[in-house]
């Protein structure tokens, strides 16, 4: 009889671990986002009215996946149109993040606040970063 209890607890245990993993699949990305991005783009990705573009439900993010890594590392300047609104405030790059960390931040953004923009692999991000046009 004892092995049944053991089996039961193991399967429940596994279920529990799986469930808790599913809870926070982008842990590093989330922490990095909160430390480096949230003060401007906000915890909920909503940005700041007219001055800082949103990342949540943002057409620009969905359509410029290959550009995100370079923007995060080197920042961006000039006008950018997001969801029909023109924004024109410079963003500073975050030089401190490694290629791997940038991948995690992108995947966190891609799957947060209702976003469903797919996955960027480490290889794709590395390649994108090697080809950033620094201007």
């Amino acid at each position, binding site marked *: 009889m004892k092995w049944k209890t053991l089996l039961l607890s193991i399967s429940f245990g596994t279920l529990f671990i799986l469930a808790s993993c599913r809870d926070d699949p982008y842990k590093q990305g989330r922490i990095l986002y909160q430390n480096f991005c949230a003060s401007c783009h906000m915890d909920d990705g909503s940005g700041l*009215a*007219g*001055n800082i573009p949103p990342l949540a439900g943002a057409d620009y993010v969905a359509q410029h996946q290959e550009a995100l890594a370079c923007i995060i590392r080197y920042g961006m300047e000039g006008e950018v149109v997001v969801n029909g609104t023109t924004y024109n405030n410079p963003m500073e790059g975050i030089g401190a993040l490694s290629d791997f960390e940038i991948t995690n931040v992108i995947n966190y953004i891609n799957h947060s606040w209702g976003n469903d923009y797919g996955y960027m692999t480490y290889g794709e991000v590395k390649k994108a970063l090697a080809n950033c046009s620094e201007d």
Partner: protein
Amino acid sequence: MRPFSKLGLALSLLLLFSTACQQQAELPILSPKDDRGSFLPVPDFSFVNQDSMPVSRATFAGKAYVADFFFTSCPTICPVMAQQMLRIQRHFSGDSRLLLLSHTIDPGRDTVPRLKTYAENLGAIPGKWHFVTGDKDSLYDMADDYYNLVVEDQNLPDGFDHSGRFTLVGPKGYIRSYCNGTSPEEVGQFIKDIETLLHEMEDATAQH
């Protein structure tokens, strides 16, 4: 049973009155005092707003206002503060007795046109939310008067150390409340304080 229920009624009435009184409670005066123990109002100032109009204490005569310190290119706490100031503006959009006053601490870069663009993009209501610039020392001195900490520090990523505090000033120029402008919870309580102050102003006009 009967005396018990009477007691219950009396107790609940008492409770009702005491909570009603609490909501009407006055805000304390937090301004510093002079040698004779009288409260000192916020000193006069002379700045220029996003529409190139002069802004001084006279602009806020008989009004309540929230003061804060920021700069447009600030990558740290200012966007969150601006979002919370927007929340306050939204909450009191229909009440002309409450105004907002945001001072730049970076007057070198934050010119009038730049403040104008920033304010318009935010959706600041003209005449309600003033974004002001002026003499740097005067701006920093005022920060002191509003119990705000502002220090230039080139070692920090944005070049400034500032506390992000919102300060509520009453119609007589006294400081009545303040909160951490980067904390939505504290700003929630702060909004209640503003409501209390506006009630108090109503009572004051009713008396005269």
